[in-house]
């Protein structure tokens, strides 16, 4: 913003008493103007093409809050939340198992992660759906007994398929987080007479969260989108609902745009939530908390006006 090197007067610039402030003409970045024009032209072209295409844009607002769509959104959210819950709990469990000194538990965890990360989630979903070929009945003694096909509803298939797959990824994220905490922290905690469990809960995990939260946020957003895969097991989530409407209303492509808009909206909301969660776990790690999105937008708007870009 300023090339003023004088420290005594400040950028406002009363005539400096000491060394004369440098007044130079800033470098003109012509390339930036050119690239901006090209980018805007391309963007305009794409927007124009879509506006001229045979797409009935009116259909999207008409159906945006359709009951079936809202029901699908609700199911997508429910599936995301529950599958992530299974993933996180399972992931923590697997991470602790992998880090344990017991070779049996750590090998089992390793095998689990190897298997579930090594096969596509779509395949896993279909396999869960078809496990009735292997297990004809499910029998939990006195508690529960039923035929597999009745037990394994589309919802449960989707939930288990997504959740168990997610657990494998979360396990690695959690393990990385736990390993990122300095050993001195555990030592200090033990030296104070704290037990292993208390050390983990009070000292290690809160610090590991700083490493765990950002990739977990990504996982949540990924999960939200991956739920669209479960349309293959006949679960009526957002994409399936949109496709169904598309087939009956005669506007199939429009309904896909509608679904995309909903996914975008939901992931945006999650991103904001993730930001504040990260901010919470950053406490103590930086001298100053990072700015909130609003503060950031303000800063970015201000920096746009700067000839040399600004490094906000």
């Amino acid at each position, binding site marked *: 913003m300023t090339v003023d090197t004088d420290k005594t007067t400040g950028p406002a610039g009363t005539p400096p008493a000491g060394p004369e402030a440098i007044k130079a003409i800033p470098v003109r970045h012509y390339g930036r103007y050119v690239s901006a024009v090209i980018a805007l032209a391309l963007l305009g072209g794409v927007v124009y093409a879509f506006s001229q295409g045979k797409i009935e844009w009116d259909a999207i607002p008409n159906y945006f809050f359709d009951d079936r769509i809202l029901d699908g959104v609700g199911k997508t959210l429910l599936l995301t939340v529950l599958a992530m819950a299974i993933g996180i709990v399972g992931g923590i469990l697997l991470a602790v198992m992998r880090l344990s000194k017991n070779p049996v538990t750590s090998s089992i965890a390793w095998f689990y992660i190897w298997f579930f990360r090594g096969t596509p989630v779509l395949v896993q979903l279909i396999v869960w759906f078809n496990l009735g070929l292997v297990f004809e009945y499910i029998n939990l003694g006195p508690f529960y007994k039923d035929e597999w096909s009745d037990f394994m509803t589309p919802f449960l298939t989707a939930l288990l398929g997504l959740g168990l797959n997610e657990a494998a990824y979360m396990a690695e994220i959690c393990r990385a987080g736990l390993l990122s905490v*300095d050993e*001195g*922290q555990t*030592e*200090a*905690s*033990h*030296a*104070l*007479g*704290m*037990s*292993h469990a*208390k050390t983990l809960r*009070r*000292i290690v995990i*809160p*610090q590991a969260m700083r490493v765990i939260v950002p990739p977990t946020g990504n996982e949540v957003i990924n999960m939200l989108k991956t739920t669209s895969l479960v349309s293959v097991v006949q679960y009526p989530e957002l994409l399936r609902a949109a496709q169904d409407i598309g087939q009956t209303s005669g506007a199939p492509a429009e309904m896909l745009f509608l679904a995309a808009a909903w996914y975008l909206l939901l992931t945006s909301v999650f991103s904001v939530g993730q930001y504040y969660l990260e901010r919470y*776990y950053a*406490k*103590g*790690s*930086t*001298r100053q908390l990072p700015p909130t999105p609003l503060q950031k937008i303000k800063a970015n708007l201000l920096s746009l006006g700067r000839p040399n870009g600004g490094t906000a």
Partner: protein
Amino acid sequence: MTDKLAKKDTPAKDTTVPMVKAEGVHKSFGQVEVLKGIDLEVKQGEVFCLIGPSGSGKSTFLRCINHLEKINAGRLYVDGELVGYRQKGDKLYELKDTEVALKRRDIGMVFQRFNLFPHMTALENIIEAPVQVKGQNKAQAKERAMQLLERVGLADKAANYPSQLSGGQQQRVAIARALAMEPKLMLFDEPTSALDPELVGDVLDVMRDLAQSGMTMVVVTHEMGFAREVGDSLVFMDGGVVVESGNPRDVLTDPQHERTKAFLSKVL
């Protein structure tokens, strides 16, 4: 650092049981033998300094005292009780983790790298163990923590996170944190080695003050001035053995062994 405080008038409470007693303590990391038979005794109420070149095993020995490291041979006693084991007849039984934790409550430790909990304020760092381990009520623990912060000269920093404190301030909070458990023995592992020279004095002042209150302290240090002024006993270690021991003033001014002389000529 320059002001010579009067030595405390009761150097040792002269109780019969030594606070720390080591008999032929051996410790190996894999193939590397770090401690090759350490014998020493720390009396109640005494300030016991361990000096020596890096790699001599002094920090390792300190960490054995509160069982952060397991010894491979020999016996180590704190306040008359075996560290890490229980003896029944002629058999040794490993203590359970909970039993080890119980014993560690009475032994405070201060680390070279402070190891404050970065996600807690200074005050929260100090009350953590009393509340979580001893089950003290929070208000009481806070009151006591404020007294301790005052004692180390940091009452105004109670709400600050470690990252907002200088190294010297962090180390003083770490000392307060250890003291909050009301230990009978304090272990210092090169407490001033990671500090700017300017900040060393503040930490040593706190330690000097603690020594005068009669706390038993085992101090691994490179601060010869501190050892001479405050120490009651001094041990020079090299290559995993005790080379020379005695009164700090005697050892530091008139070392008997060639190795001690060579070491001191470099650091003094």
